[in-house]
């Protein structure tokens, strides 16, 4: 079974700072990769996904992620965060079946 690790438990940033959240997975085969976001009081929403093709994927709200197969990584980035980006971010992997395996999540707090 695949596992997903997110490197940071809690990240605190100031507005306009750049954000990078690490995600590594353990599975040697073909994978689909996702980043989900959960804003305070809201449900999980898809931020972006990678199925195949260009390893640099762009999602909503200015987020992007890069799939590096050799490093088993799918790191999330945003060049300039806003206060409204305060949320919990989850990396998830789907490997040759229908289940999503999630990381433990990273809480991002953006200070105005």
């Amino acid at each position, binding site marked *: 079974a695949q596992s*997903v690790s997110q490197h940071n438990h809690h990240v605190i940033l100031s507005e306009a700072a750049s954000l990078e959240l690490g995600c590594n997975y353990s599975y040697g085969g073909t994978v689909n990769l996702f980043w989900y976001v959960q804003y305070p009081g809201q449900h999980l929403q898809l931020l972006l996904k990678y*199925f195949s093709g260009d390893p640099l994927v762009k999602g909503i709200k200015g987020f992007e992620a890069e799939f590096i197969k050799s490093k088993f990584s799918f790191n999330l980035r945003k060049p300039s965060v806003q206060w409204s980006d305060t949320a919990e971010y989850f990396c998830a992997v789907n490997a040759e*079946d*229908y289940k999503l395996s999630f*990381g433990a999540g990273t809480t991002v707090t953006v200070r105005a």
Partner: protein
Amino acid sequence: GAGVSQSPRYKVAKRGQDVALRCDPISGHVSLFWYQQALGQGPEFLTYFQNEAQLDKSGLPSDRFFAERPEGSVSTLKIQRTQQEDSAVYLCASSLTRGGLTLNEQFFGPGTRLTVL
């Protein structure tokens, strides 16, 4: 509605009580999933339905957990004789297509927060 809905949003149960959690997926979605999210953790897979067929229940933690989707739309997750360790947020998700590598996005509901006293 436009999204996945779940009810109740919050449930407090005394240890030993039975509970039933409901999920209304997006209309027309073939696949339905239940996940359990413990405090400070990511969601963990419980079970998967394709239409009314429960194809995978490998994530259900014990035989006290039971899920059904009798008509291929609404699903119910039932927990019998609840224990304190069952306290968690239970998430339902639905997807348009069948499972597999061509899996479409899973759309999540708001979850039911279960607290067992």
